[in-house]
């Protein structure tokens, strides 16, 4: 069935349309702008259409009707983690190629694939890139930068961007080669779950360490004079170093779970700190 329609097609136009590595490379560079035109209505729609244009031009450059349909298709709602969006553009490139060569191809399947991939990819991507990797980069970068070391910002950029660029590049080719079946496969054997679980462990350990090292609260309050001075902070440190930062983290986490708005919490912190400074606790 498929062979016959393909044969017919070959007879019609005499030549199969093909997406080359060069076209895929162009799409790769364009995906760097995926969030450049982000908007509230359809989110990454313009960015996605923009990224697909080299492939669409190659496939539908001589067919205005199909070009129009393809452009409109990719201007629909789209949103996922930008660093691995190349996985979807790769798959979609493969599908568009099939569509250009096969009159019987079901065009709506392209929309279906986009819609069903963006969720899971965002699920794992958001937690890994925004949660774990960015946190790692920020942790390493700020630890140096807070002391005024220029290496901090540089390391921040390198730690974040080198892995994302490499992954973006790999996903670009994987997506095209493996086609649409791949993601279902790794979801079925639990790889997705493992990645999320592993990323969460790493991410939380770093958050814990940053809470201990980058949140600073000390209480210089003392009682008594001379040799009998009791420093509150010394006692607290004996109970547990970093007790106050941990307490602050716990209270704020609890407030967030109760639905408190971040800006309200910031205002609260400022008010408490100023009152504390006025009374002389801090």
């Amino acid at each position: 069935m498929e062979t016959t329609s393909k044969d017919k097609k070959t007879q019609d136009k005499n030549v199969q349309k093909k997406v080359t590595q060069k076209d895929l490379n162009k799409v790769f560079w364009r995906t760097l702008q995926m969030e450049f035109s982000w908007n509230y209505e359809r989110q990454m729609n313009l960015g996605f259409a923009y990224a697909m244009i080299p492939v669409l031009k190659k496939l539908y450059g001589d067919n205005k009707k199909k070009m129009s349909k393809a452009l409109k298709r990719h201007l629909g709602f789209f949103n996922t983690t930008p660093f691995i969006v190349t996985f979807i553009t790769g798959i979609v490139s493969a599908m568009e190629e099939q569509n250009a060569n096969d009159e019987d191809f079901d065009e709506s399947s392209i929309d279906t694939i986009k819609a069903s991939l963006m969720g899971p990819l965002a699920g794992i991507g958001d937690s890994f890139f925004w949660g774990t990797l960015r946190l790692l980069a920020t942790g390493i970068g700020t630890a140096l930068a807070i002391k005024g070391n220029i290496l901090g910002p540089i390391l921040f950029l390198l730690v974040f961007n080198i892995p994302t660029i490499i992954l973006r590049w790999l996903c670009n080719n994987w997506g095209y080669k493996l086609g649409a079946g791949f993601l279902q496969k790794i979801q079925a054997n639990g790889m997705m779950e493992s990645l999320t679980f592993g990323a969460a462990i790493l991410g939380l350990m770093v958050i814990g360490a940053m809470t201990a090292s980058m949140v600073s609260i000390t209480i210089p309050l003392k009682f008594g004079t001379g040799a009998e001075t009791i420093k509150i902070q010394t006692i607290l440190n004996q109970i547990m170093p970093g007790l106050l930062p941990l307490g602050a983290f716990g209270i704020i986490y609890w407030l967030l779970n109760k639905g408190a708005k971040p800006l309200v919490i910031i205002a609260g912190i400022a008010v408490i700190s100023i009152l504390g400074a006025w009374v002389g606790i801090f």
Partner: protein
Amino acid sequence: MQALLLGIIAFVAQLDYATGDSMISRPIVTGVAVGLVMGNLHAGIIMGATLELAFIGMFSVGASIPPEVITGGILGVAFAISSNAATSAALILALPIATLALILKNLYLGIFIPYLSNKAGKYADDGDADGVQRMHYIAGFGLALLLALVVAGSFLVGSHAVKLLLDMIPAFVQHGLTVATGIIPALGFAMLAQVIMTKSVVPYFFLGFALCAYLKIPLTGIAIFGAILAVIMVQIMHSKKNNAEKVVTTDDGGVDNGDDF
């Protein structure tokens, strides 16, 4: 002149989103550039890092748009350096600026780009790929330009007024705000933790905390231990699940047979 350069920094920072979310819009990066422009690189780096920690929980996941860190980060550091103020001043200035600028940005993202996107739809009707492409560029560069104008304009108008304002703040309030600067990162960490936290991974937060608080292991070290532990735990989870699956499949077979017949 400084206002113009700060505007250019804002423009380039917004190109973050044209360079693969490369993070060049973050305060830790813009702080360096602002420090150079304002003639105090050292302060720029430190203030940038402080703002970065304060803004750490604020990044766009899915459809949520955080306070506008570009204007907040650049103007906060610039005003603080220009009025010889402490690091905490950068933070108290950055937050309201970022919140105000977000309103403007929301209008742009909520009204202007959707308008361009509809126009792109019309080009698509005609199969005009270049027209669609043009709309994308206008949307992106337009926002960069808008932020650049906001930063340059605010700096021209505001730097004198901001200095007067900062001078008026009494000492205990300034000290209190310095204290707040130390606490606010906890908010960012808590917001991040909320995204990742599930019951099964709670202990790892405390493990990271304790390793750092008691053993004073630096962050890179914690990250390495964390990565190794993550691999080990995933392996353990896998072997557990594989064993469980073996049991479940035999059980299922039995039950199914019973139901069918």
